[in-house]
């Protein structure tokens, strides 16, 4: 296998078309005759819909039909999570969603739909319809811990105390371990906030009938899974649906859930197969799609004076919103990471995933690890301070050591990743000089620097099925198309797969073309992209399939060149006799001959499935340098450096792009993003792009991404996951840097000016005479 393309900063294959503006996303492909669907959302956080009077709304010119929850005759509850289906009922996702419900469980739940000829008519009808819904309002609860208390409103009958799931881990004996004399205790409560994906292309899908089936075109990460769920939601055979995924304008996990495909398909069927389109406006995307889980942690560590851990405990409460979606998986990922990142013989851990009457939390880049990494890493910083050790040295001492083996997942830390990443990052940013320079500052404007790490792995083995399928088809001129179940959503999956195929088969990259659009009728089955599985999992089926194709090519070459297969190779598109290097024929000549020969004609194609039974740790670090204007409570980011070990980097340009994107999300997570609800009504407060503070061009410094390449032994191409890891260490690094600068270490997110104001005033850094007076009164 050549390494002509792997490792090169090849331009992504669709860049040219995207720069020309001719790439078609879902709305661009939809015929303009489509009827427009607008969803009627609940305006109460918990209630029963008693009636909806559609008569006035129906009179709006252009309205075709109005559906309500009362039109659903057979209630097919369905799960929405983008997980591979499990044939074991105990392992299946919770099926608690209806296409339209008469018992809305959060403000924004789906209780009806308007179908009209154009947007204006649909909006007008919707405004009228909203006023004609009669609810029996019920009490609601928005906070996870409150939802667990006795007497809290119950969302789902089968889940007492609103606990979706509760899991524990126990290692050794914490009770015994803390009896050791001389232990130093460090305890903290840490809280992270709900945020939203804010992909620039809102979720959109359209559906139409074709024969006795329904076609759904959707901006989704998981077309094959979507097909299954549409079948489950409508109670129809799964094969009655065809799902097509065109180019997607970002997903980040929101589109790793089945959102409105079932409703859209169902409406099309009700209208005899009419073409209908459901384009979710931005405001509704915030509320009625998915958000990130807000998680509250309580972590305690007991350390020996030398800085090693004697015992640790963790408790975490995870706010899941009103329906299960991805369920307990997010909280569980964090809980399972806890004993791995900083191993300790004595650990007690518990986590609850809780239902509340809030927007549904689902998968979002990092899948629980940005939350957990924040808690783990700010706690680690606090531990280092409690012991009086340098934070970086404390981490090096306690992090997962080389050779660590995790029995359940069979993951192994093969290399000294953490130290390598820390060393490289520290050198790039000048950590050691700066951390000295910034110690013990005074004055209003102070600088700080800190580093944080995280835990992450690749794909979902052994928790769920991991499988990838690939098909490669060769044309008469030797060029190929390939299809994968792993979807291109902007991360560059198509391009890296093409690089792998070019090198493994032995043809120029210019002869490799992805079929970027997944179509469940044609594309080999795959579960899509999530869990940073893309490059790792597709690598397996790509390599296997490419080798199968190459085998067929060399067989054909043997037929035409009379040379034995073991003396032949395909290099850069030429059949080469390896004994003397002579080029015998081009791949184009071979493909043409093989297809048209009257002696054993064959279309050269290969297809295979690979079930992946391995996983890979993917670690990295973030160094953050900040400047804090204390009186103004503002943080300025000076430098952000991420160093990641994602194994062999297939494409440095695309890999760096993924890191930049993760850093960007981490910056917003750390400093400004937060979704908020009104405590009195359960209504979301900031569900638009002005009030929800997503970072803009001006809020970012230059972003630096670098890599340490430890070839992953279990991988087809030495790779490990990269899509999600970059988000994870950024927020804790920023928090720790602010702490280093000011001495104020904050345990919540985001670190917005009004949060800093509260903390700086409490710490006495800001002179608020009123506060002093209050404190004076309390002291008396």
């Amino acid at each position: 296998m050549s390494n002509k393309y792997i490792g090169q900063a090849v331009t992504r294959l669709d860049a040219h078309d995207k720069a020309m503006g001719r790439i078609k996303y879902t709305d661009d492909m939809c015929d303009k005759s489509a009827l427009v669907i607008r969803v009627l959302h609940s305006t109460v956080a918990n209630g029963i819909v008693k009636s909806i009077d559609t008569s006035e709304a129906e009179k709006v010119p252009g309205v075709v039909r109005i559906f309500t929850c009362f039109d659903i005759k057979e209630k097919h509850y369905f799960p929405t999570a983008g997980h591979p289906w499990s044939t074991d009922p105990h392992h299946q996702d919770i099926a608690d969603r209806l296409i339209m419900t008469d018992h809305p469980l959060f403000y924004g739940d789906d209780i009806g739909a308007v179908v009209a000829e154009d947007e204006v008519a649909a909006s007008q009808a919707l405004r009228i319809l909203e006023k004609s819904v009669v609810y029996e309002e019920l009490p609601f609860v928005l906070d996870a811990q409150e939802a667990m208390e006795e007497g809290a409103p119950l969302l789902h009958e089968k889940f007492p105390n609103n606990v979706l799931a509760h899991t524990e881990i126990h290692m050794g004996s914490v009770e015994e371990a803390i009896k050791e004399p001389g232990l130093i205790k460090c305890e903290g409560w840490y809280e992270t906030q709900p945020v939203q994906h804010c992909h620039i292309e809102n979720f959109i899908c359209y559906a139409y009938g074709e024969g006795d089936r329904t076609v759904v075109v959707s901006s989704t990460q998981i077309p094959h899974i979507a097909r299954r769920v549409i079948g489950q939601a409508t109670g129809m055979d799964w094969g009655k649906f065809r799902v097509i995924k065109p180019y997607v304008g970002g997903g980040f996990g929101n589109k790793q859930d089945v959102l409105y495909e079932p409703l859209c398909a169902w409406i099309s069927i009700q209208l005899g197969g009419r073409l209908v389109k459901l384009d979710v406006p931005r405001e509704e995307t915030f509320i009625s799609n998915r958000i990130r889980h807000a998680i509250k942690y309580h972590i305690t560590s007991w350390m020996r004076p030398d800085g090693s851990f004697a015992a640790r405990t963790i408790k975490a409460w995870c706010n899941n919103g009103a329906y299960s979606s991805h369920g307990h998986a997010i909280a569980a990922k964090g809980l399972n990471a806890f004993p791995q990142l900083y191993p300790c013989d004595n650990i007690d851990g518990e986590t609850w995933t809780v239902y509340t009457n809030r927007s549904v939390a689902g998968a979002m880049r990092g899948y629980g690890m940005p939350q957990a990494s924040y808690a783990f890493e700010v706690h680690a910083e606090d531990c280092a301070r409690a012991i009086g050790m340098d934070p970086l040295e404390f981490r090096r001492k306690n992090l997962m050591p080389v050779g660590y083996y995790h029995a359940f997942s069979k993951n192994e830390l093969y290399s000294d990743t953490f130290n390598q990443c820390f060393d490289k990052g520290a050198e790039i940013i000048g950590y050691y000089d700066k951390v000295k320079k910034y110690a013990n500052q005074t004055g209003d404007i102070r600088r700080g620097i800190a580093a944080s790490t995280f835990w992450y792995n690749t794909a979902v083995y052994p928790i769920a099925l991991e499988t990838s399928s690939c098909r490669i088809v060769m044309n008469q001129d030797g060029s190929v198309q390939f299809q994968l179940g792993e979807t291109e959503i902007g991360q560059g999956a198509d391009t890296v797969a093409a690089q792998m195929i070019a090198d493994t088969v032995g043809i120029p990259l210019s002869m490799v073309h992805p079929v970027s659009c997944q179509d469940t009728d044609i594309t080999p089955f795959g579960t899509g992209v999530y869990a940073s599985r893309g490059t790792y999992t597709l690598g397996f089926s790509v390599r296997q399939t490419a080798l199968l194709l190459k085998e067929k090519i060399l067989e054909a070459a043997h037929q035409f060149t009379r040379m034995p297969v073991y003396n032949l190779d395909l290099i850069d598109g030429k059949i080469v006799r390896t004994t003397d290097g002579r080029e015998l024929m081009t791949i184009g000549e071979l493909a043409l001959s093989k297809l048209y020969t009257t002696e054993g004609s064959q279309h050269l194609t290969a297809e295979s499935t690979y079930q992946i039974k391995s996983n890979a740790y993917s670690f990295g670090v973030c160094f953050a340098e900040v400047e804090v204007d204390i009186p103004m409570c503002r943080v300025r980011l000076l430098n952000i450096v991420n160093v990641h070990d994602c194994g062999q980097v297939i494409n440095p340009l695309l890999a760096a792009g993924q890191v930049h994107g993760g850093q960007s999300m981490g910056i917003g997570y750390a400093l400004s993003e937060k979704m908020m609800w009104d405590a009195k009504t359960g209504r979301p407060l900031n569900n638009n792009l002005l009030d929800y503070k997503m970072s803009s061009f001006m809020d970012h410094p230059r972003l630096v991404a670098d890599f340490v390449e430890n070839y992953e032994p279990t991988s087809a191409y030495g790779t490990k996951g990269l899509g999600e890891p970059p988000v994870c260490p950024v927020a804790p690094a920023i928090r720790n840097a602010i702490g280093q600068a000011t001495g104020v270490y904050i345990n919540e997110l985001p670190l917005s000016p009004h949060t800093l104001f509260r903390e700086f005033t409490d710490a006495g850094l800001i002179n608020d005479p009123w506060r002093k007076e209050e404190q004076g009164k309390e002291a008396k």
Partner: protein
Amino acid sequence: MANQLLMAKSPEEAVAAKNASAVFVAGGTEVNRLGSDAAAAADTLISLKKCAGLKDIEEDAGFVTIGSMCTFQQLVESEKVPSYLKEAALFMASRTKRNMATIGGNIASKRSDSYIIPTLMAAGASMKLLTAGGKEVKTWVGEYIDEGDSDALIISVTVPKDMKVISKRYANTAQSHAVLTMSAALGEHGVRLDGAVKNVGLLHFCDLEATFREDPDVSEDKIIEMVRVCTGLHTADDMFGSDEYKRYLIAVTAYDLHKRITGKEV
């Protein structure tokens, strides 16, 4: 929901068409956006894009008169517009939006997070309105904010050319709604302070001005305390911050602006 569009060719035509169920559309950044309540409630949109005589910028005897339909970007690029007003226009970070948003539209929206109203109020800007009867009326920006006739059309805004005005705006990110926008101006009667406090309104800080006049060397602590206990200020805890935080911000900003505008070292 608006069904009719009138492309008014003159201010008189626009004003004549204005009634309770019609709304003026200037740049479109407020009225045309998805979810705009103004557009939803109205039957008719009166577009001012073709109106004659609303886009000029004239300088005369130390004052600059700006047509109400001048865009924020025009303010930034014009040589005649004083730099303090350009700075305020630049608070709108998005260039493509600045190409559309108008000075008249921003005043008429009376937003509690307006980019330029505090600056205009502090500078003592005056406005010319055309009322329903075809009458021209002159008023101060502050007056218009409090009692202005919403059926009248803003024709122009007049600002002093050489005045010292400094403004500050706080938003969590470059784009978002601001919790506080404040301006200080140095006039013959001393320092004038105006601000836009999100969810409270457009305020003229008379009490602070009086305090600064009485004692130009007053300490920052005293200002913080004064704003803290001020009962006439109706800030509250909301998603933009706590009541305490907003009062603190108003106080330190007022103190800082006062210091800078009276030329003292910070």
